[in-house]
């Protein structure tokens, strides 16, 4: 009796969030997918609800879309790599070396950029990278383009990498590090053979964020990417400029599929338990 009642209560509590997830999120995804199979009137831009595979045909036959897809994947991979490289020393210091008071300060420092608006940070980098900005005064600036874009995105998503890696390293028992030292291993060797293998799932967990966020970004590209375009820009331009929603929907399924494959691969590493 009591069991049914608590089950009912849990059900009632969970209904609103499940409805939210089901209607607002999954239904939107479903609508997106359906739209991808519709056509469009070239003059008025009205959607024509007739089943067609033309959008996917364009996607696979026009080479520029392949180029943009691979470029986007490449940028996402690079941003993830840069974030992993930068995040590891910070996370290691926070988890294993810093005193508790310093650690608290560092956690706040890492989280702080998340409290500022995305646009403010992106425009700050526009100023930094400008030909008359601070980087140019110091001697060199990559300007607006690929390098500037990778720097900006790596900066934007860094906290999402630091936090899971920090959490993963915190769980690493100190005894393992001491045992490695007692057996005569150097610090570098300990990192390579003990710390990194154990922290790997944490890196993978962080990469889910950095990779997926880069995959969908189109605003930073507009602000610091120069003439560069990524997958998100093509989707955005097809919604906004070209008014070709069916094609935008078709192209938007690409990152969804990529992320599903990525998550399936990640699940095998056991990293999802680290999220």
């Amino acid at each position, binding site marked *: 009796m009591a069991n049914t009642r608590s089950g009912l209560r849990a059900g009632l509590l969970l209904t609103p969030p499940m409805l939210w997830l089901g209607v607002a999120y999954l239904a939107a995804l479903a609508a997106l997918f359906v739209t991808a199979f519709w056509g469009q009137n070239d003059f008025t831009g*009205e959607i024509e609800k007739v089943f067609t595979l033309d959008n996917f045909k364009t996607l696979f036959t026009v080479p520029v879309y392949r180029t943009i897809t691979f470029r986007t994947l490449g940028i996402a991979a690079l941003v993830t790599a840069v974030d992993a490289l930068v995040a590891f020393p910070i996370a290691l210091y926070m988890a294993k070396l810093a005193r508790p008071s310093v650690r608290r300060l560092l956690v706040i420092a890492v989280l702080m950029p998340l409290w500022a608006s995305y646009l403010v940070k992106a425009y700050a980098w526009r100023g930094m990278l400008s030909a008359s900005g601070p980087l140019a005064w110091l001697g060199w600036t990559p300007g607006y383009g690929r390098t500037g874009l990778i720097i900006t995105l790596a900066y934007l998503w860094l906290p999402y990498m630091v936090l899971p890696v920090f959490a993963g390293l915190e769980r690493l028992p100190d005894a393992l590090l001491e045992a490695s030292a007692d057996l005569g291993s150097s610090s570098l060797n300990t990192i390579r053979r003990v710390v990194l293998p154990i922290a790997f799932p944490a890196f993978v967990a962080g990469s889910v964020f950095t990779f997926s966020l880069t995959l969908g970004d189109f605003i930073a590209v507009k602000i610091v990417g120069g003439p560069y375009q990524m997958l998100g820009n093509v989707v955005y331009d097809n919604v*906004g400029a070209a008014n070709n929603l069916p094609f935008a929907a078709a192209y938007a399924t690409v990152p969804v599929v990529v992320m599903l494959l990525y998550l399936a691969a990640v699940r095998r590493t056991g990293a999802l338990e680290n999220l």
Partner: protein
Amino acid sequence: MRQRTWRIPAAVCALALALAGCGGGGSGSDNTASSAQGGFTPPKVPMKQSLGKDEGAVSILAWPGYAEDGSNDPNVDWVTPFEKATGCQATVKYYGTSDEAFNLMKTGDYDVVAASGDASLRMIASGDVAPVNTDLLKSWSEIRPFLKYKPWNSVNHQMYGIPQGWGANLLMWRTDLVKPAPTSWGAVFDKNSPYAGKITAYDSPIYIADAALYLMKHQPDLGIKNPYALDDKQLQAAVDLLKGQRPQVSEYWSDYLKEQQAFETGDTVIGTTWQFIKNLITKEPVKAIIPSESSTGWSDTWMIGSQSKHPNCAYAWMDYIAGPKGNAASAYYFGEAPANIKACDMVPDKTFCDTFHAADPKYANKIWWWRTPISQCLDGRTDVKCTDYGDWTTAWTEVKG
């Protein structure tokens, strides 16, 4: 931030619209343009027959600089006098490209829109704007005759709006960094430009027409007669020219603030612009001209939304903005030839209308005003099929690569 953050809501609106479109009936969606000169049948949208009481509000969708209420510059304000005179509280939204305006009008949230020729016909054909009863507009008689009943603001001799003004896309450069001063669009299409990496271009498929115009003058063997009527071969030539320009481009702009800032910092030193943006750049020396090839440009029309909730205020706004005072203020600030004859006496600068050749139909006819390319060639050719705006959009994505 107002001007920057609209991009995201705009995208969200458009997406929401797509979803809403799943349920709604597709009325009027099967109207296609059957001939270049307005030979298509627009959906039946009722025209207002008489004016009633003002509703107390009006929402305006316009190019940046067309409806200033003093928030950008306290000295520039012609919206407040309108509000005081009519009691219609105005909310203003600015847009960056014709395509954006076209999408926003589909939401039905706007009572009036200032549309260029590459959006106006599409809005008429999709039933998003209503025919305009010019008898209800006092300012109609003051509009220059050569702007009335044009293929981009009327269908079958029925006006769908009232002209605002017209002007040309200009070539702008930093006079301290670009020497000698350019005279041709060739300055932005030169593959060996000394300003490589500091060139800018307008981020819209319609910019293909700028390349086509350049080819029209420099490669006559392509046979381009109208930069908005390109067959496959001509479009390919324009695309090739733009692909050659792409490595020289520092960035493409559609946000006027972004272009203003890039010129001020020197990240961009030469490229296409509007007079309005040139006027905003006061910190650094810039100059803007119509190059020797002439130019693409716009001829804008105030139109009324077919789903307008405040039609009386909308008519009041159209009458005011196309009337001598409103038209003078907006055209002067934006930097274009006003459509109202009397506006020329109201602007603070007496040479203004001469500078912009406001009374000169011959000069106006030399500018290639933005049009929507459609498969029926706008130059009257019937032996080939022209590329339509959908083709241009795909081509533009390929240009950017």
